[in-house]
């Protein structure tokens, strides 16, 4: 599979992803799965400014990604798949698309009602419910902001 990282991160294409993970995994493509962003060209342009040289980005809806998943996860190019939240990754995983995926949580930040679980992960009851469902739909879910950071399993996140 060409997808070298499945990541949930509110900031999508940003420093930790393109520098921290990018230098480690050497992806050639960033696949951003987000219904809102897929429809907003000006926002896509902002994210494109953050791409390292020699890489490209695709901005697709969940439905488009599911429909093209076999092609998108083919042999190449090495790809980092990003969603901004748990719910989007869970929608992608519905129907067995991501059964072999190891999903990385890299940034779910504070908002009203969310409690801190890690320095970069805050969850509320709805998030926990989605996380439980996601963990059942994929091979593994863990939090790890950077390659050298310790992995924290979904079980540990759910306490």
């Amino acid at each position, binding site marked *: 599979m060409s997808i070298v990282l499945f990541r949930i991160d509110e900031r999508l294409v940003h*420093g930790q992803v393109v520098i921290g993970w990018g230098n480690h995994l050497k992806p050639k493509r960033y696949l951003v799965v987000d219904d809102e962003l897929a429809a907003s060209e000006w926002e896509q342009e*902002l994210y494109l*400014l*953050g791409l390292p040289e020699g890489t490209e980005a695709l901005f697709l809806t969940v439905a488009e990604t599911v429909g093209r998943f076999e092609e998108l996860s083919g042999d190449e190019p090495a790809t980092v798949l990003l969603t901004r939240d748990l719910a989007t990754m869970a929608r992608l995983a519905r129907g067995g698309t991501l059964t072999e995926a190891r999903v990385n949580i890299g*940034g779910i*930040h*504070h908002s009203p009602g969310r409690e801190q679980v890690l320095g*970069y992960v805050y969850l509320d009851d709805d998030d926990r419910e989605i996380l439980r469902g996601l963990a059942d739909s994929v091979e593994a879910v863990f939090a790890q902001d950077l390659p050298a950071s310790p992995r924290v399993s979904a079980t540990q996140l759910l306490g």
Partner: protein
Amino acid sequence: MSEGTGEAPSEGVRPIRGVVLAHGTMAQGMVDAIHRIAGVGEEALVALSNEGKGPDQILRELSDVCGDGPAVIFTDLFTGSCALSARKACIQGDRRRVVFGANLPMLLDFVFHREDPLDELVPRLVEKGREAVQSAPSAG
């Protein structure tokens, strides 16, 4: 253009506010240094970190500290969550600008020229920042 005396801006001109937005504790460190060197306070330059914050929260906090007057947002990098939020904060209206790659010489120049028109000030700050990046000649 003002004379760069560091005195309080004169009446009638709304001085520009500066916001340093950066990763970790970098912004606070830079702003502390400017406050110590130039003797200005938070009315001139404030620090904002992206630590533990999502894009929406960064954008909200940026809007709060920039207020409704003219503002320059200084970021550490050209890309990433700080730069992206700064760009978004400047989309509406013409009273805010972003300068990427902040350094102390650039910020020092800023705090002494807060009454200048934004369109003159920003290119000047970029030039000051670039000029200040130098290397020492080899000892040999």
